[in-house]
């Protein structure tokens, strides 16, 4: 609707520009040829956007039912983008692990955070811009889980971050904080591997990571941390993320290294500057 209104405005301007050429400044007159280009661009954008919107809405309903159509599309996407490493039958190759039994949750996490497709063989797959649309991710997940079932994408009732933050924080300290840092700031593991920071990660992806144990993270299945436990952990993480630190400057929540460096550089720097000023002669 907004685009339509804009187009009308443009059209009106072209007409009125012709009518009022004598009175307008030359700069305004020069704009009329550009307006045609803009019109075409807007028209293209509008048709493209409408197509995308229609496409997304149709595939959303398809993914919920994990329809045959979605699975078939996922199979094509898988063969084109994933099968080189994971094998055409999900059996895995030397370059990538088997995907049998990983379930839709693992696919949604790995592809939905941009970790897959893998950029190169390295100690750990980094987060990067997501390579697929949401409907493509859903189709891939539907295909992988249709071959062999596994953990599915979590229900939204556990992703509302409205659980018990205190209990979640205790569970986080026991199960997660040793790698991910007590404030969720992440930390180093061995040989180039690392536990990523948890700030800015969506509720769904946190849940899926616990459920599936991506890369070197252990699995926390529903017998270990119940869906309610996972909801509490997500709640505490979101509480940390959305509330300012009572201690003021967090310095990345990295602990003594960052804080020590800050104290040495700025604290000692200020002391040295004061000492120089104290002993300098007045002019």
């Amino acid at each position: 609707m907004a685009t339509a209104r804009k187009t009308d405005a443009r059209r009106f301007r072209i007409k009125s520009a012709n009518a009022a050429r004598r009175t307008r400044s030359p700069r305004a007159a020069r704009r009329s040829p550009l307006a045609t280009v803009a019109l075409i661009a807007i028209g293209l954008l509008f048709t493209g956007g409408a197509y995308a919107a229609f496409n997304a809405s149709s595939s959303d309903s398809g993914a919920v039912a994990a329809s045959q159509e979605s699975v078939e599309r996922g199979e094509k996407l898988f063969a084109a983008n994933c099968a080189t490493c994971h094998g055409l039958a999900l059996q895995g190759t030397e370059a990538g692990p088997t995907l049998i039994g990983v379930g839709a949750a693992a696919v949604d996490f790995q592809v939905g955070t941009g970790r897959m497709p893998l950029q190169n063989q390295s100690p750990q797959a980094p987060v990067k811009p997501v390579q697929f649309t949401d409907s493509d991710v859903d189709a891939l997940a539907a295909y992988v889980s249709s071959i062999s079932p596994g953990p599915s994408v979590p229900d939204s009732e556990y992703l509302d971050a409205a659980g018990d933050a205190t209990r979640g924080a205790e569970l986080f300290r026991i199960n997660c904080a040793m790698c991910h840092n007590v404030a969720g700031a992440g930390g180093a593991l061995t040989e180039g591997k690392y536990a990523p920071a948890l700030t800015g990660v969506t509720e769904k992806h946190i849940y899926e990571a616990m459920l599936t144990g991506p890369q070197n993270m252990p699995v926390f299945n529903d017998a270990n941390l119940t869906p309610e436990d996972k909801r509490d952990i997500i709640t505490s993480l979101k509480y940390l993320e959305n509330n300012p630190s009572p201690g003021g400057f967090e310095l990345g929540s990295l602990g003594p290294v960052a804080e020590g460096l800050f104290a040495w550089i700025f604290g000692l720097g200020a002391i040295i500057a004061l000492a120089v000023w104290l002993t300098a002669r007045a002019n």
Partner: protein
Amino acid sequence: MANEEGGTGLVPADASVSHGRDVSAGTAVVQRDLAQNPGLPPHRPRTTDLDPKADKRSERGVSLLFYLSIVGSIGAIVSYFALPIVPDDPASVRLNTLFIGLSIALALLSIGIGAVHWGKALMADHEGIDIRHPTRGTDATRERAVEIFREADQESGFNRRKLLRNSLFGAFIAFPLPAIFLFRDLAPADNDPAELLRHTMWEEGVRLTRDPEGTPIKASDVTLGSAFHVIPEGLNETEHKLEEKAKAAVLLMRLKPEDLNVSPGREDWNYQGIVAYSKICTHVGCPVALYEQQTHHLLCPCHQSQFDIKNEAEVIFGPAKRPLPQLPITIDADGYLVARRDFTEPVGPSFWERGEYEQ
């Protein structure tokens, strides 16, 4: 005169250099080509000495700083009332401490900077020399000091009454001893501390339960790649919960049975690839719980010791010297994981009597 001393290049100190007062230079020698004391640099008047306007400006600057200090002090009081700490609102704590701290810093720093600036720019500016006076007392003072000591010795009989003196020395030596023995109180009083370190809450049939709730764990719950943080059943009801947890904390993992290299005598310590290892690092006792489920390495966050779970927690990197003790486990009639027995060796870092318990 100096040349007659020979070609050594050295002359007695008092031969050429005067030390001002009647201080003997003793036997010190100084080099003949000693650099002469250049003395103080010529006096350079400050702008505040020459220009009355600059003087006035500095005076105003200093008093402005002192007024700023008053503003800071009042600001601290105002921020105490204006930004109170609201319970359950961390943001209010931050605002409160930030503004009170900044105001007090402004108040104190302004006084300090103002005072220094006053001293440097406005107070009288002239160089003076205070000669250091000799440390040696006069002969009379020294003789009198010796005399006082001698008198005290005679009157107290310190050297004459040997029994008295030696018993006093003995008392002084014995006095600090209780402080050493008080250290014994750092260890529990009614038990042998080494014995306490040797044993944990684990014994035959004690269920492995989840930290912190204490719910039991079925073997089927532990899927491949899982890591469970485990405490012994009943830990939450014990009197010294943290002390017991610090010894008994265990990490439970499931590997493929073919991935485990089991040494003779430990065949029945794992249950279908489920293994339990002490979480207490053998280096200095940090909790080792950074489990990498693909490499099956455990990393200690304190000093980067690494343990290989595939090879019975063998040390593969870092300062730890011993593998993590393994807890022998099996399942009970209901399918819950239980301990077969306590650890076969003391958990955690070394202690004096540890060798006696090694098997």
